[in-house]
């Protein structure tokens, strides 16, 4: 049972260990223990694994558990590949001194990339243990097997601990080390309970929000009244009554309080009198889409270009065009961001729930103008973030406050308005689509243009650094090979993925206009770009099907050639008892009408397949939409933990229904005005539908990501359901009652 304690954190913060190597054991003559730092190079087995003298295995993972269950899944992968019982493996994650830099925890890559690195390390280790035992026994390795933490020969058994316990492997990851046959899996593929859940349920878990150090002070930040305002003056005389105030910290427009108690810090932050300059640099929200359309284009990226779409479109007897938009939303973490920073002898230690501890280390070092190796970041799980929320910014706040009080440990906990007002936002995305059909409903041409931010993966500037006028981001040296885009950074952009479509048309061109600016600090929020693009693509596909008077599911199948995609949609038809008919259904004139909408995605056109059907109920008088039931068929290849996967898919569906029906930040020309849950409402229990999920397990295929893909199909499935019910197209998220009524009125 996993329950991190403060002692665990302190124990693992050093990174200094005494090591021998496996070779030392085999060749005792060279055994020389030497103090050295923990190996973290991601091509080394020791970066990922260690086996102690009791035979307990520690997996070191740069990918961190954001509440998604990957701690458990990684444990399963390692235990399986090392032929160990599940409870002999624990995971240390996200410690820049102890774990390899596997990139940020994002993009549904924790299993697909991170887990496969762990599997490769474990397979290499297993082979090394077999070889070492073979040498010890003087028999060929082929006569030995690994079983239950031991290497077994005909008449001899040796535990791993005896072969390697406490020593290093000193081996590179071996891509040729044999992997276990998935047919022999006993741990991978099973719905094992998550190791973190009992402690979370019984309030014995340490979230970053619970993390405490001896002598720790409490910090709070005071943000400008407008995003770009300057601090003109402040009056600290109002703070004299608050006994615990240690310091008011100002660096240009960065302003914070350090106090001995949390309540004093809160009171002081509220009591401090400040005057800020006027600033009104945001676009008018009512004209946001004009602003986006007029934004300066950095460059265009063509993600697909088949045939001659423009002339084919011109010559099509039937033409359709539509524009879809998806609003600015916030991560909305239930617990506001939090971090603790301590500076000792010019060495910075930062405990935070950052999804990217190595990136944060580089950014904090840049801000503090220190060498990166003087900054040590340690992940402590926080409230779910669903992308890059404010955790890193709280860390930057804590760093500046700690620096101002001689490096004493300072905990910064954002208030609700800090989180809603200042975490970086998912950018507004606008999509124009055009298509041409012939007289019998065949698609002749498809064209689309996507207005998306220029850089979807670069480090988000640290807020404290921006306000204080310090370097906000380190020059990145990170590989950008993820997200299904080429490694060339000029086109590496998460927001280009899924602009091209999975359907084969004779003429198609899909273009992204990469914009220089978006209104707020831009970051990724669960399924960045893929959700917005799939909304536009799958709704427009539904428009074409309706125009062709074709059943929307059959219409998709007609243009699909991918066998896994076809199987997925057929299974979706089966579990939903899909009745073939064109949309809209000719329903009654009752106030409340029902419909069902379909959507499909092949994530980034190269991995996880998801098909979905939403059953919706629409009240045409009030404009209210209720999702009654949501069906998902999901194929992410080999499943590591089916219950963990179900949990992720349910979460994707419910969170995305919330975003689709309700969520859009409100702002004036100066700042965000929707600063709490009353002005930024999310889905409540009363509004949650039934969710029915069918998993397609393919044990012999590579495992793909599941943290995001199911979210991508939700907005389009709902919009298509509303069209099916009412014959009215919703092309602008969120589908609020007012917008639904307006769409009905306009139809």
């Amino acid at each position, binding site marked *: *049972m996993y329950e991190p304690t403060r002692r665990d954190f302190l124990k693992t913060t050093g990174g200094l260990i005494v090591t021998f190597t496996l070779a030392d054991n085999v060749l005792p003559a060279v055994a020389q223990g030497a103090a050295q730092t923990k190996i973290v190079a991601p091509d080394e087995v020791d970066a990922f694994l260690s086996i102690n003298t009791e035979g307990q295995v520690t997996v070191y993972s740069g990918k961190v558990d*954001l*509440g*998604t*269950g990957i701690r458990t899944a990684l444990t399963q992968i390692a235990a399986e590949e090392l032929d160990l019982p599940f409870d002999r493996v624990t995971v240390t994650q996200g410690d820049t001194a102890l774990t390899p830099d596997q990139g940020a925890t994002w993009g549904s890559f924790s299993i697909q990339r991170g887990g496969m690195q762990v599997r490769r390390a474990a397979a290499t280790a297993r082979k090394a243990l077999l070889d070492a035992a073979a040498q010890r026994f003087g028999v060929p390795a082929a006569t030995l097997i690994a079983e239950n933490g031991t290497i077994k020969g005909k008449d001899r058994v040796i535990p791993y601990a005896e072969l390697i316990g406490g020593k290093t492997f000193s081996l590179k990851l071996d891509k040729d080390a044999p992997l276990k046959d998935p047919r022999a899996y006993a741990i991978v593929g099973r719905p094992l*309970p*998550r190791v*973190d*859940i*009992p*402690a*979370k*349920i*019984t*309030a*014995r*878990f*340490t*979230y970053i*929000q*619970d993390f*405490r150090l001896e002598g720790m002070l409490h910090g709070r930040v005071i943000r400008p009244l407008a995003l770009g305002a300057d601090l003109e003056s402040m009056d600290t005389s109002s703070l004299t009554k608050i*006994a*615990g105030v240690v310091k008011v910290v100002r660096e240009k427009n960065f302003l914070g309080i350090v106090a001995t*108690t*949390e*309540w*004093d810090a809160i*009171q002081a932050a509220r009591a401090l009198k400040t005057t800020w300059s006027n600033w009104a640099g945001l676009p008018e929200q009512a004209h946001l889409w004009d602003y986006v359309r007029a934004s300066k284009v950095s460059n265009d990226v063509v993600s697909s270009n088949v045939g001659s779409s423009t002339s084919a479109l011109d010559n099509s007897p039937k033409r359709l065009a539509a524009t879809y938009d998806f609003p600015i939303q916030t991560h*909305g*973490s*239930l*617990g506001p961001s939090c971090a603790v920073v301590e500076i000792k002898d010019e060495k910075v230690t930062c405990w935070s729930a950052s999804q990217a501890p190595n990136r944060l280390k580089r950014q904090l070092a840049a801000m503090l103008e220190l060498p990166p190796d003087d900054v040590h970041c340690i992940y402590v799980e*926080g*409230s*779910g973030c*669903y992308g890059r929320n404010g955790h890193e910014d709280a860390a930057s706040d804590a760093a500046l406050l700690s620096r101002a009080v001689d490096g004493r440990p300072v905990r910064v*906990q954002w*208030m*609700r308005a800090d989180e809603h007002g200042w975490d970086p936002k998912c950018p507004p995305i606008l999509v124009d689509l055009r298509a041409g059909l012939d007289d019998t409903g065949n698609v002749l041409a498809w064209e689309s243009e996507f207005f998306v931010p220029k850089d979807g993966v670069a480090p988000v500037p640290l807020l404290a650094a921006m306000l204080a006028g310090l370097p906000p981001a380190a020059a990145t040296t990170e590989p950008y090979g993820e997200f299904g885009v080429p490694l060339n950074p000029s086109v590496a952009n998460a927001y280009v993925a899924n602009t091209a479509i999975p359907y084969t048309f004779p003429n198609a061109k899909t273009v992204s206009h990469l914009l220089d600016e978006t209104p707020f600090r831009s970051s990724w929020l669960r399924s960045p770009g893929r959700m917005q693009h799939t909304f536009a693509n799958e709704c427009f596909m539904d428009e074409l099907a309706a125009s062709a008077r074709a059943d929307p599911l059959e219409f998709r199948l007609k243009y699909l050639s991918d066998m896994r995609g076809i199987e997925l949609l057929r299974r979706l038809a089966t579990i939903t008892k899909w009745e073939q008919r064109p949309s809209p259904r000719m329903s009654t004139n009752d106030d409340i009408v029902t419909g069902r909408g379909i959507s499909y995605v092949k994530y980034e056109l190269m991995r996880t397949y998801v098909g979905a059907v939403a059953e919706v109920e629409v009240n045409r008088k009030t404009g209210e939409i209720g999702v009654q039931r949501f069906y998902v068929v999901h194929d992410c290849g080999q499943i590591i933990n089916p*219950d963990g996967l179900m*949990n*992720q898919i*349910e*979460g*994707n569906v*419910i*969170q995305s229904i*919330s975003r689709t029906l309700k969520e859009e930040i409100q702002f004036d020309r100066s700042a965000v005005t929707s600063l*709490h*849950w*009353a002005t930024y409402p*999310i*889905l*409540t*229990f*009363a509004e*949650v539908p*039934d*969710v029915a999920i069918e998993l397609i397990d393919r044990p012999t295929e590579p495992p793909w990501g599941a943290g995001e893909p199911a979210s991508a199909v939700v907005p389009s499935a709902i919009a298509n359901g509303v069209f099916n019910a009412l014959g009215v197209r919703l092309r602008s998220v969120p589908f609020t009652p007012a917008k639904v009524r307006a769409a009905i009125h306009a139809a």
Partner: protein
Amino acid sequence: MPTSVSLTVNGQATTVDVDDPGQPLLYVLRNDLELRGPRFGCGLGQCGACAVLLDGDVVFSCKTPLSKAAQSKIITSEGLGTLEKPSSVQQAFIDEQAAQCGFCINGMIIQATALLAKTKNPSVAEIKKALTDNLCRCGTHLRIIRAVQRAARNI
């Protein structure tokens, strides 16, 4: 000048010295008494993460002044059960794997405990109604509902 306030938390009488007895109970529970169950989510009574039982009733400790809680019996998630011996509601949440990030779960457990103390076999509608003031951002709602149903069966 610090004021001493006497509290009964999870069955134990205790005294805290605070400068401001008007401060929310939440900060005293978390910082002075080092409890983790009640969590800071909004400080506005909008999300339910800070819920505790006060004489058996659910209150949001972020909006409850310490002074108002002084004469009452306070129960937090820690007081319901332990890792080794979870309460029946907690065990049902573990059995249903009803958490993702888990940050909201304290409030869900507290609400469910109060609900099941009054309503033996709640319907899904009654469970949803009881949890209507509690937000979950991860989308764990269905598992939470199933956990409350399971707890009702097991009590």
